[in-house]
């Protein structure tokens, strides 16, 4: 609850709903960065979440970077930085089990 405006705390991004206590939350943030790195690496992007400040840093390998609030922001930023949408149904993500490393 915000003491000034009286609104209840923001419901947050829907993806944050899986962790409510502080320990789970920080674990979820690190895990999120881990999954994002695996997914964004082929696009020449990295994700970093230090756990100290809100938000995620998305950077290109050449060093340009941006800070986003949530996963919706990640995909918008990735689309801009990589020059195309990150599509989970792209061929690189749908390899069969035998092809997977």
């Amino acid at each position, binding site marked *: 609850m915000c003491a000034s405006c009286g609104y*209840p705390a923001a419901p947050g991004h*829907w*993806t944050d709903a*899986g962790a*409510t206590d502080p320990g789970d939350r920080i674990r979820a943030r690190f895990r*999120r960065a881990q999954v994002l790195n695996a997914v964004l690496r082929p696009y020449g992007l990295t994700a970093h979440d230090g756990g100290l400040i809100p938000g995620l840093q998305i950077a290109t390998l050449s060093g340009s970077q941006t800070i986003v609030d949530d996963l919706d922001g990640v*995909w918008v930023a990735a689309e801009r930085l990589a020059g195309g949408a990150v599509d*989970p149904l792209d061929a690189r993500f749908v*390899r069969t089990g035998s092809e*997977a490393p």
Partner: protein
Amino acid sequence: MTRDDGRMRMTVLGGYLGSGKTTWLRHQLHHGQFKDALVIVNEVAETPVDAAILGDVPNLAVLAGGCVCCQARSKLVSLLREVCDARSRLDSSRERLQHIVLETSGLADPGPIVEAVRGDSVLVHHIVVSEIIVAVDALNALQQLRSEPLGRAQVEVADRLVVTKIDVAQVAALTRLLATLRRLNPGAMISGAARGSAGGLPACDDADPEPLPEPPAEAGRSPIFATRLVLDPTIDWTAFSVWLSALLHARGDDVLRVKGVARTPAGRLLLQSVRKTVQSPEILPEQNDRVDNIMVVIGRGYRAEDLRRSLQYFATAERT
């Protein structure tokens, strides 16, 4: 019951013109369903008729002269904001409004209404859309589904389909309609009603669905189908949510509906999306007899096994 986060639940009642929405709602209200709820009735015409049909509902608001999913959307948002404002002014000892029922006009697509509530910076704190109920006219629906893309859009996003007028429909036509509805929206619960009271439906396992022509705007697109995704222990909520948010960002126009319950460190989460909009998940009480960790994805333009493989990639790729 779901966890009380202080927000009002909103039930959206839709369905094509003349599909029996008001009749069904009147019957439910008469029998004490949606007790103490605020009922909002939207009509495209300037003269509200439905409000008169509903009679002496204690808590009724009418939005006439425009459809709330398009031209009258701002009217709906401002009405809901007033409701939220009045509710917030009540001191905590008073009984507060818990539920809103929105009966849309027959020309409304429920999708944009959910987006309007979810996308408004005030309403999102006060209202969560808990269910989309769509009335389907047993006599006319097949013809409407054939010719009206809107009729299909309504059926596709429903959580619950109420087939009305089953007392006057022929059994053969009814089973065909049920098979068609199952195909269009395999995830929805289907029930029958005659003049508002619940009625049994015939089995439709053997019936063939109506071959529906592709609507003009969607000609050349593949049919809609449902995929059942099992979130096995290797797929944690975080990986799943990263995957789904990417999927909706890239394929939100094709992925029409996602619904299911996932087990997370925070408890059992009810997740649902309508096109690109995801409702804030609700935490459900523990029930050991329920089968969780299954998500139903309804959409088109992709292969079911690609969804599974891609999800598996997201869940396990970091170990490479």
